[in-house]
């Protein structure tokens, strides 16, 4: 059952539900070592996507990713806004003229995550969303190319995302606002890493249910 952009509205709803369910936790995290707006930033982005969902659902994948990227770019702001815009525009660029199977998606995701690294001048180990997106994308690529079944792939990706979030707890932040706190940034997980993991988990859950 290949995924199509027609399912995008459901994914947006699934992600929104997950984010809203963890609203207080997200805000507490971004407040502890950031500036407390991460939840609202994502919510603004998700609302904008929801209001364009029907339009997006009618596009092909590259056009859909592009539209998603431009939508969040204009709606979110902050660090996460430009990073997610970069991620989705990256998916659009790298998914063009390719079949939309899991392997090509995994490749596109890795390329898009590389673009995010470049945009953020960051990499794993700096206490950011990249500590989730990088291992998740790598795990997806590895699992997809090894021909595992869908559920196993999803389980592995989710596990990588979970581990990624947890890894940020004791890190010294060297990127993002948390880095201003120096040593005081330790002991809290990163809000952007947490929401990346929530998104990945929500999508995985939705795919499993739909399957």
């Amino acid at each position, binding site marked *: 059952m290949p995924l199509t952009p027609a399912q995008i509205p459901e994914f947006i709803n699934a992600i929104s539900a997950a984010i809203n369910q963890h609203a207080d936790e997200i805000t507490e995290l971004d407040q502890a070592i950031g500036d407390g707006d991460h939840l*609202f930033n994502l919510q603004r982005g998700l609302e904008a996507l929801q209001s364009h969902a029907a339009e997006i659902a009618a596009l092909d994948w590259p056009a859909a990713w592009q539209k998603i990227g431009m939508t969040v*770019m204009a709606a*979110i*702001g902050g660090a996460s806004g430009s990073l997610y815009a*970069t991620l989705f525009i990256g998916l659009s660029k790298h998914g063009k003229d390719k079949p939309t199977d899991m392997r090509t998606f995994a490749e596109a995701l890795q390329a898009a995550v590389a673009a995010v690294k470049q945009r953020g001048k960051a990499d794993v180990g700096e206490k950011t969303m990249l500590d989730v997106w990088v291992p998740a994308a790598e795990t997806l690529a590895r699992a997809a190319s090894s021909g595992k079944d869908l559920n196993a792939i999803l389980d592995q990706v989710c596990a990588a995302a979970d581990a990624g979030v947890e890894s940020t707890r004791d890190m010294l932040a060297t990127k*993002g*606002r948390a880095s201003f706190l120096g040593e005081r940034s330790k002991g809290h997980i990163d809000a952007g890493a947490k929401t990346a993991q929530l998104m990945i988990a929500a999508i995985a859950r939705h795919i499993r249910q739909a399957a």
Partner: protein
Amino acid sequence: MKKFIDSPGTLLDTSLQGFAKAHADIVEVRTQPNFVLRKQRKTGKVALISGGGSGHEPLHAGFVGYGMLDAACPGQVFTSPTPDQMLEAAAAVDGGAGVLFIVKNYAGDVMNFEMAAEMLDGPSATVLVDDDVSLPKDHPIGRRGVAGTTIVEKILGAAAEQGYDLAACKALGERVVRATASMGVALTSCTVPALGHPTFELGADEIEIGVGIHGERGRETGKLLSASEIVGRIAGHIQQELNPPSGQAVLLHVNGFGATPLLELHLVYELAWQYWRERGLNIQRSLVGNFTTSLDMAGCSLTLSLLDDEMLGLWDAPVNTAALRWGC
């Protein structure tokens, strides 16, 4: 949370409408996306565009007008604005001599302005403001841009008005940034409307030293000190950073974070003035007031800018904005 709001979601847009009306002689406000632009535009002049999260008023919208900014892009409270705002602003104010973005060094601001610059058709350049010496020079993402931004925007505004080209504006801007250092102290946190409670809690006898302008904690929580001790402490960091020779002409800026009365800001100014006079500086210009605020935070910062004759002349040049006005 006690604030004058109907809902956090409508605060910014309604406030911008009020700002537009209260300063209708100087600015216009466009919406969807939001930006503020000066009413009298000028062709053949480098267009100066700044922006950042809201909650720092009068920065930046209060600096739009003759002799300072051409446009400002206000983001949500403490959230960087988005590239579409910057692109629309650029389209509206580009006078044919290119666009200079003045960006405070925060990841979100930097990345969003960068995306805008990438998407912009015409020539553009960026000046990054990173005057906060509470962070070490080699901080991985660089130092934050704080109250020195006002000085950079004023001096560049005058330069652009006098016909400096894009490269000259950029070079001057970077020179002003290098000559400028700031450091701030918070006595209280602030309350972001969408959050509804203070971003952090400080004990009744605690202060936060080396804070940015987003209500985030500083480098260090310390015991409450006297004004003289606080000034000695933060002026010391600035002095160490700039290490100005005796006799150096300087501009001294005391910036309030929003809830600190002018009575205290002028006291801080006097103490800082004495600090630097004892070190032989020639304090030629001053600016005391709430210019780069953090909503309702109590606290203030000191900014010192080393002035050369060119900078001094540009500082004195006429300016006519909502928040800074002289010579015209």
